């Protein structure tokens, strides 16, 4: 049994308030793998987005949040961040695409010049759209960028209000379902890094650090457990909350894991560099009040604990 080997023997008094996104994925993984009996208490809270989790962290209502690389950039933009990124989760970057509607003559990013392109503001979609445009030799101002939420974006794409849409997840799947074609993919632009952020207060407590390291290791183990022949069980759990069919969920999961297996690891220089790139992109887009040095909200204090926990 994996235990917190970091010495702090009594974790029973520790309670971690952990944020989870969407349909409580990490929580479900632990349960499925039978790893949810922790020697400390975990209070899971489900939010509809990483930004909301970070809001809660800032307000002191959460100890730990998980998000993509984007939200912490904004959450730290005012220089008052009271959290640090403590671990990095690798995951799939599939279904992060720029698509054109069925029958569109647009087939490449370069053709987007002067066109209306929908995107989800302040998300990975904005980032990879920016980067893809740059790769195609276009500036952001060369397109008519239309900020839209995913559902609104798809509606706009179908309704012919926009010429292309940069979005992610099921909106892209749905778009393909209606005959949309991919004209750019974020798969190779996005790092696939998902951050685990902990509040400064949490980091300051050795017991909580130990508990967090143990928890992250368990989640990591849980993903490994699923890959190891329990894909269908996982897909079943997924399907009930995302209201998909099990086969749909399974194939989606398999494709994702094939591209990049989900693992949790330490904070690394490379991850910080990747985050800095994101920050710089948003800076260039004029979304940040001032230049942001992302390393100010990264830390390696959990690394030693986490390394041990992962190894055990």
């Amino acid at each position: 049994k994996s235990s917190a080997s970091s010495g702090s023997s009594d974790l029973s008094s520790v309670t971690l308030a952990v944020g989870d996104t969407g349909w409580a994925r990490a929580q479900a993984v632990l349960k499925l793998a039978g790893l949810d009996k922790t020697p400390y208490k975990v209070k899971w809270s489900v939010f509809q987005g990483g930004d909301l989790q970070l809001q809660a962290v800032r307000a002191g209502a959460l100890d730990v949040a998980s998000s993509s690389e984007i939200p912490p950039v904004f959450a730290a933009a005012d220089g008052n961040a009271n959290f640090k990124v403590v671990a990095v989760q690798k995951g799939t970057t599939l279904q992060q695409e720029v698509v054109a509607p069925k029958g569109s003559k647009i087939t490449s990013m370069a053709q987007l010049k002067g066109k209306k392109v929908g995107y989800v503001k302040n998300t990975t979609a904005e980032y990879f759209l920016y980067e893809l445009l740059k790769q195609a030799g276009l500036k952001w101002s060369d397109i008519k960028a239309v900020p839209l939420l995913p559902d609104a974006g798809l509606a706009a794409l179908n309704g012919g209000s926009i010429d292309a849409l940069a979005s992610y997840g099921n909106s892209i799947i749905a778009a393909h379902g209606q005959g949309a074609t991919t004209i750019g993919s974020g798969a190779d632009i996005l790092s696939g890094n998902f951050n685990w952020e902990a509040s400064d207060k949490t980091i300051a407590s050795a017991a909580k650090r130990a508990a967090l390291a143990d928890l992250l290791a368990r989640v990591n183990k849980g993903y490994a457990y699923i890959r190891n022949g329990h894909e269908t069980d996982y897909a079943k759990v997924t399907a009930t909350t995302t209201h998909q069919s099990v086969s749909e969920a399974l194939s989606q999961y398999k494709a994702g894991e094939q591209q990049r297996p989900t693992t949790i690891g330490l904070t690394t220089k490379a991850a910080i560099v990747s985050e800095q790139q994101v920050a710089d992109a948003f800076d260039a887009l004029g979304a940040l009040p001032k230049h942001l040095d992302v390393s100010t909200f990264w830390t390696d204090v959990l690394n030693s604990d986490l390394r041990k926990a992962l190894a055990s």
Partner: protein
Amino acid sequence: MSVQEHVTPGAAPPGNAGEPAAGPEPGAGPQEAVAGTAGTRAGAAGAGAATSGAAPTAAPRLTIRPARQARRGFRVPRSVRRASGPVGVLLVWYLAGVSGLLPTSVLASPVDVLRQAWDLTANGQLPSAIVASGKRAATGFAIGAVIALVLALTAGLFRLGEDVVDSSMGMFRAIPWVGLIPLFIVWFGIDETPKIALVALGVTYPLYFNIYGGIRSADSQLIEAARMLGLGRIGLIRYVILPSALPGALIGLRYALSTAWLALVFAEQVNASNGIGYLMSNAQQYFRTDVIVLCLAVYAILGLLCDFVVRLLSKRLLTWRASFDGDGA
């Protein structure tokens, strides 16, 4: 009330058969002389206008027909007519889906939604979501209603209260909830409290505005009468002010009840793993239009239910009122 007036110049009105009423009766000899006295007043104006020597025609008359008689023939029952609106919406929706006017990616077809409803009811998700949201809505509504009542009474009864409370309410009302969510998290944490608080907030405003307005539209004559009867402040509130404000309060209630459910769409984005708001924003994230539309439908049904309750309540509470209830069409 239907006014069945058929002006029939100088002749018996139709439907008045067998009764040779009105008009120049056969054998009415001294007709001219009479008409000369009665005069004819085509235009209704002219106070001292002299009686003109116009043609001596009898005045148009009409028969007041008993309501029962008028109501003969087939009548669509009330409940059917009331259902026609919602059913019509359903139909349009279905046709829009079938005709391809609305792609299912935007608005799932009724059939898909029904299937989803069946599935989610079978696996218990939908009932438990309604129960979870219902609890929050009920608690929040109760709290909000009490706050609204207290504030409205303070503002309605005391000039000082009006000055302090009413302007603040106008101000607060304009502040969007969404902007307050971070504050709510600080004050109330991320458990049930902030959700209930949001519902309470959403409910307070419409109730406040309507109760306050109702209090201020209380008839000053009745208030004077009550003072003369020796009613104290409490008595005045109990027997005059609150009943006066009741019709307005019921309008506010109609609005507040649906707001209670709506507030949860936002409230249940924060740390909720159940509730219709959660179900809905989750579906939004995973792009399940059938679930989204199902949630919208659930909201609509809840809205109809709440409306029904308010309607019943109004009927019971406002029997004393003699007011306009639309014509008899």
